[in-house]
């Protein structure tokens, strides 16, 4: 029987044949195995505090220290080793310091401009976040984006922006990426960019835009503006679902939108200076009503 070498393993997983069960019971092995496996599964390990461990990990990463390792027993050569190790540590500290991780967050209701070491400018729209690591040894400039940002890229190493829905690599240029929900919207203002999502890709030239939505790619469209309208205090839409527009208002003014799931298509714009004007600009043409809560933190949308 070639199954014999896994017999006891299959006792645990319950994959024994009837004959095997019978044989084990007759020989008394069954009872023994039951006792051993049950007792073993009742063994308890010392408690592991995940949250505290994570906190510790974060601290050591932030401090750019190497995580503590076990210390070998001291030997005559210990001093020399120690000196060599501290030199290494200094080098490590230098390398990791010059290779640190950076996170920039624009809270809801604010925009933020960040300039990278190489002089590229990233303007984050409200509620968006960008993370990247900076290092002299990096082969390319790579950023992770949650939300929307406008990039003005200096010449140099390849420049790439990853979002949850796809990525944009720069071929030398300025462009805007908007990726909320399952949609990625890219506008290119100068130079060229390559946008990729779900295995599809498009190369955009200046004054072109494209939308990737779920598994679909819309045709490339011409645009007239020379930079993202949001950075000039305006959001503009062409046949956009109302709920996307309402979500944008929510992020822009740091307001929670209640019952925003309206499917009408909106064409038009809103400005960033007044919540009421923005709501009117969107709701009136769509025949929707809005109401602001007393604490001014929520807006209720109704038909």
């Amino acid at each position, binding site marked *: 029987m070639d199954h014999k070498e896994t017999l006891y393993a299959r006792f645990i997983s319950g994959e024994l044949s009837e004959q095997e069960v019978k044989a084990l019971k007759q020989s008394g092995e069954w009872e023994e195995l039951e006792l*051993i496996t049950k007792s073993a599964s009742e063994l308890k390990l010392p408690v592991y505090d995940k949250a505290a461990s994570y906190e510790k990990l974060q601290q050591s990463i932030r401090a750019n220290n190497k995580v503590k*390792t*076990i210390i070998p027993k001291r030997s005559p050569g210990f001093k020399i080793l120690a000196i060599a190790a501290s030199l290494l540590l200094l080098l490590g500290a230098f390398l990791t310091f010059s290779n640190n991780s950076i996170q920039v967050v624009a809270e809801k209701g604010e925009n933020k401009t960040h300039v990278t070491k190489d002089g590229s400018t990233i303007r984050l729209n409200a509620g968006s976040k960008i993370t990247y690591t900076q290092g002299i040894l990096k082969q390319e400039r790579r950023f992770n984006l949650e939300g929307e940002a406008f990039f003005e890229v200096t010449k140099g190493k390849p420049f790439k922006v990853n979002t949850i829905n796809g990525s944009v690599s720069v071929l030398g240029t300025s462009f805007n990426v908007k990726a909320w929900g399952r949609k990625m919207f890219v506008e290119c203002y100068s130079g060229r960019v390559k946008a990729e999502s779900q295995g599809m890709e498009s190369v955009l030239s200046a004054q072109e835009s494209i939308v990737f939505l779920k598994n679909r790619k819309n045709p490339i469209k011409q645009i007239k503006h020379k930079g993202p309208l949001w950075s000039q205090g305006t959001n503009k839409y062409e046949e956009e679902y109302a709920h996307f527009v309402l979500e944008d208002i929510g992020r822009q003014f740091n307001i929670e939108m209640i019952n925003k799931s309206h499917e009408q298509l909106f064409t038009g714009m809103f400005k960033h200076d007044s919540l009421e004007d923005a709501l009117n600009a969107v709701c009136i043409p769509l025949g929707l009503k809005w109401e602001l809560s007393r604490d001014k933190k929520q807006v209720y949308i109704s038909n």
Partner: protein
Amino acid sequence: MANGICEESIFKSVFLKHSEGLRNFLYYKSKDLNLAEDLVQEAFAKLWEKCESVELEKAKSYLYTVSSNLFLNKVAHQKVVLKFEKAPHSEKDEQTPHFLLEEQEFKSKLEKAISDLPEKQRIVFLMNRIDQKKYREIAEELGISQKAVEKRMHLALSQLRKIHNNV
């Protein structure tokens, strides 16, 4: 596609999901709890450093491989015994003191025998018994075939039966 692990929230979820299983695995392997927990920290620090080149789906096997290698690189460690938490006594209180004594004796013999199992058998056995992992899952984490896991499990149980016969 975007690489998620460099995103702190995703990195954190990977940590919360896998750190305990990894720590247990390293404890079974090294029998040294402090070392196991240090290695978990080290492995995750490495993962964070390499977050751009490790895909999210590969993170788990990366962690198991890296921490095993880190362990191998440590200076030879002294013989140690695997320790478990003192388990509460059986709930049934009608048991005789004699029975309790026997039970205690059996349990401590079992713990000793598990600790003395060859490393490969011990790891597989405890990952299944304590962490309740399926053979397929263990195979994936250790980078071996499911059949190999089952063989090790069988060998471990054959070994443990011996102590039982001596009780």
